[in-house]
């Protein structure tokens, strides 16, 4: 813990070696976060780069009160949110579409790898992907999501349902048959 504090202090005073240590420590996990929020690897790389530039610029403001990882993660999420806001100017039109949701089984998601799941999340339409990530992974409420994305709460709820629906449908389409065979043989 003391070590981390020292590293942070060294980073703030401009020590390049300390900055690299901190980067190596956090980059893999943060790249994982960025990959979830981005449409592809190249966008995730851009966000990771931009995020770390922000981390080192504002590190002097970090008060060591919460976890550093949480603080850095918040910056990564904010960079992705900012980029989303810039790229997708969305006006508050209520999207309360009711979907015909099939009752997909949860097993099907349980059986695919994290890599595969991330690829599927990346393919979601941008707004669905954003709502899905903020709700499921960051644990934000629909009210918080509606404020940070400038959409209505109703839209947030509907988008989340739609995102999950698409995910499950895709998993079934891509891996459904294999899973069925596995189940039978088990």
């Amino acid at each position, binding site marked *: 813990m003391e070590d981390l504090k020292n590293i942070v202090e060294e980073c703030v005073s*401009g020590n*390049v070696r300390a*900055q*690299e240590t901190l*980067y190596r420590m956090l*980059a*893999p*996990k943060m*790249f*994982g976060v960025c*990959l*979830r929020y981005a449409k*592809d*690897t*190249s966008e995730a*790389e851009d966000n*990771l*780069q931009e995020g*770390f*530039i922000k981390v*080192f*610029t504002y590190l002097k403001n970090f008060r060591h009160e919460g976890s550093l990882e949480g603080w850095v993660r918040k910056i990564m999420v904010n960079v992705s949110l900012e980029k989303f806001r810039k790229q997708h*100017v*969305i*006006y508050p*039109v209520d*999207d309360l*579409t009711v979907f015909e949701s099939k*009752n997909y089984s*949860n097993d099907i*998601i*349980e059986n695919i790898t*994290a890599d595969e*799941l*991330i*690829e*599927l999340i990346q*393919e979601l339409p941008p707004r669905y992907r954003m709502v899905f990530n903020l*709700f*499921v*992974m960051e644990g934000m409420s629909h009210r918080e999501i509606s404020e940070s994305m400038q959409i209505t709460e109703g839209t947030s709820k509907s988008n989340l349902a739609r995102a*999950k629906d698409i995910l*499950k449908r895709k998993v079934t389409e*891509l891996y459904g048959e294999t899973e069925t065979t596995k189940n039978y043989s088990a």
Partner: protein
Amino acid sequence: MKDKKNTDDIIREKLENFQATPPPYIWDNVQLHLTARRRKNRMVHIGWISAAAVVALAFLAGWYFNENLKEDKSKIVNSEIIQNEKGKNETAVQSEETKVENQLSAELKAETSNQFAGVSPVSSKMTLSKTPASGHILTSRESINLTMISTLNAPLAQNQQFHTELARHNPVISARNLSAQEALLVAENIKNVKASSTSDNNWKMGMYVAPGYSSYSSSYSETYAQNMNYKGSAGNANVGGGFSVQYKTSKRWIVESGIYYAQNGQQSENSTPVFARNENADYVLSDAGLSYFSNQVRVENNTMAMNSTAGVIQFSATPKGAELTGDFEAKNTGVANLLVANGGFSQVFEFMEIPLYVRYRVVDRKIGVELLTGFNTGIVVGNNAYIENQYGVQNIGETADISTFNISGTLGMGVNYALGKHFSVAVEPRFSYYLNSINNSPSVDFRPYRIGFYTGLTYEF
């Protein structure tokens, strides 16, 4: 409900600790950015310090030359002015003074040439010492760029391969698969985006009317002052105006130029007549109730000149209601050198001003507040002298030795209100002060200033 919770938990567990190794060039890029930012910050500091130093130097230089000019002025004889008759030794004294003047101007010339000779080697030294340093920076930058390119190339190739594989693995959902509602939503968003898209143009044009008040600060050589009509304290109320072009260099900084018309000038009174009651007495004020005022003038080759506040007025004709007489105090004079007139004189100068201003937006909202500072090149386009007496305002001639090109400094503060997307109204009190004497005669230092309320309309493209 249970299913919903489970799905979320499953996904969260799967992804919470997901890690992926980012490509190595990300760190290189982060590092490059941080170094560049540090360098930029340093440059900004250096920039501000240099700007402050230049301003300080300019003020010091202005003050230094101003002080020197004042000292010289008292020694230099003004050849245009008729001397008061002070005694029989006048001729001798004058010739001595002329000698002093010649000597002085020779000394000044020598000093100036020495100063210039001293300056040039320093500046050439500076350029020489700078060249190798900048060359070094360039080469180091080039090498950084080259290393960046080489680090970028390899991952780019990797990326391309990855994307081809990804495309083969996961077919992209085409637009045809979108539901009707989604299609509607997309159409609505596109419409809104188009409606709200504004062109991001940084140019602005403005039109101003500027009622204002102008006055001046002045000083004179001793001989000039002795023969001058009464130095007035009143200024002129007048109306100026013009067009401006502004360019936004960043969110808050704006550079402005344009063309403005402004009037400057002074109003002065006649001298209170003084005369000696007898040969040995001091000069005394004339008795109360005398209805005339007198001003010393020089009449020569059918021209008449009079020392006034902003410089020597050269008459084009004798004004109505004024008489020319001999000096009351002169014992044996046959020369008419007194203009007896009842009325006030004014000297009015019209300027075309081309400004170079910097504006800073302190408040950048619907109601905005801006600070403004900069310089004007003031070109004299009108030079007139007037007398106002019982016959009305008469144009009597012009002021001699007025420089065509002058420099003034301006400070101002503006409040503007946006009327819509493009138009805004603005009210800006501005204070302009001429940094040089607009009269280039060494005997007169006349610097007009003006306070104007610039009211106008601006159009943002």
